[in-house]
């Protein structure tokens, strides 16, 4: 079976590539027409060790009507000051069959006419960098 992304999903991936030109962005088409997207080596700031992580997330076939949630970071991420990662915002889980930290930032007010996968990615990163 040929697996292909839907045009709305392709558009979302293109916007992510454009917003992260220095990063490798991998998008694996899913059987439902969505995609599993991984943005490599994204900076998380000095509060974390390691300071960078991949960010993984699924853009579902129902995008942009469905929100993009959750996001995943590398499993060995920890706070430099030794404090625990906030729970339930950042909890152990899996991404593409591997251990990962799941970042739970649900957008209850998601608006399919205004919100985008890349916009959500920026919001999640801002929360991880400054508020988590």
């Amino acid at each position, binding site marked *: 079976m040929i697996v292909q992304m*839907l045009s709305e999903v392709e558009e979302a991936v293109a916007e992510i590539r454009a917003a992260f030109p220095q990063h490798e962005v991998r998008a694996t088409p899913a*059987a*439902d*027409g*969505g995609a599993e997207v991984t943005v490599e080596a994204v900076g998380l700031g000095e509060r974390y060790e390691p300071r960078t992580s991949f960010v993984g997330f*699924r853009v*579902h*076939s*129902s995008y*942009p*009507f*469905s*929100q*993009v*949630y*959750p996001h995943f970071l590398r499993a060995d991420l920890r706070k430099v000051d030794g404090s625990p990662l906030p729970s339930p915002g950042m909890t152990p*889980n*899996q991404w593409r069959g591997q251990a990962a930290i*799941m970042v739970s930032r*649900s*957008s*209850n007010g*998601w608006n*399919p*006419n*205004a919100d985008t996968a890349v916009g959500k990615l920026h919001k999640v990163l801002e929360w991880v960098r400054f508020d988590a």
Partner: protein
Amino acid sequence: MSWSVAIAERDYELLRGHLFPGDGDEHGAVLACGLSETGRGTRLLVREVFPAEDGKDFVAGQRGYKQFAPLFVAEKSDYCRDNRLAYVTAHNHGGRDRVGFSEDDLRSHERGYPALVQMTGKPVTALVFAERAVAGDVFVGSGRDELASVTVLGPTIRMLRPEPTGSCAPTEDAYDRQALMFGHGGQAILGGLKVAIVGLGGGGSLINQMLARLGVGHILAVDPDEVEVSNLSRILGATRRDALGVLPNVGLPLLRQLAKRTARSKVAVAERVALEANPKVRFEAVRGDVTDPDMSARLLDCDFVFLATDTIQSRHLFNQVVHQYLIPGAQIGAKVPVDKGGAVGDVRVVVRPVVPDSGCLWCGGAISPAQLNREDLKPEECERQRYVEAPNVHEPSVITLNALGASQAANDFLFMFTGMHEPNTRLRGRFQWARRRDWEDIGDKPDPLCRHCGRGPKSAYARGDGVRLPTRAG
């Protein structure tokens, strides 16, 4: 090939107001239309109405009385080509209940329309209106056809034709009493309808019974599930044998499992119930999930769709079908909140008529993007992400609550098609807070940018076969 036009009431009123301002003169407009092609014919779906300004866009004719100005034709046909829409002109003649094209009109179509067909890559159509009639001349690549009707979709669904249809045959005895309310003509309308019911659980099974007894001619029932014992309190006509299969009294769990494989599907039970009520009904029992492409395609030649399911994905699909294909519908449901201690909260029944002009489920907040995302997850992901609303978790459900919603929705449907709604009736959705016996109208706040009911460039509104439906990949 049968041709027809579907137009939302708001657009029709805009068009009618422009064509019949009360001056007795001729006026013109262009309609940009999506297309829907099914086994029942091709429908032109009005997406936009462009009134032609008198003296500038609609001017004195060189051969006939009036004509569209060449620049206006060029602009609007380019617009249709660029947006993959069909170009339709509309103008008016005098008269009330009968209308037809003049010889000048027909010759003008022959001169200009074949080139417009080539240019836009779509059929090109002319409509001529009288106050309560319309005729149409359709040009396609291979020839020319007459338009059968224009359907105006609002709280009352009106069908305009070139002239009044003949009187209807007397109604069968079985329908005598109801025909006393809406007449033989109303009964004939019901007999000519194809109506879909998506979800044949508590609510859907009641609607099925009502449609069959009303004399609806063709029912399409879609549901993936078989009857379970826990459904017997709600599904009309379902028996223990339907739920348990050929060996209903077997005690051994393994044998019971095997016997259950012979349980009857909900749509098969619905078929039995409908045929008992009306042996003449044409019934299509389709076992499947409406979000599968093959299933959703079956809705597209229906005149009305009832949605009585639990999932947000089916709600999303239904809402897009209504707006993309201009097929009116109604969604029903009931919610019985129960907290962890077992206390019952505010019990709610909902009925939402959804027509192209009003009731959009997205604009009304009835589709949760978060829930839509959750329903996209695989079961193991659901488990890992610790969602409590996992599949197979049964929520409270009671037949009396189902009946409140089903009855209102079926009555709305009946009154829409038989013209029983009073003028200016608004088709608002309603909540019934059952424990307080309160009814509450659901406000309608359409978002112009909505991708379903809005008219922005990303909206699916009236695009018909031009855009894909939100189905699961096949």
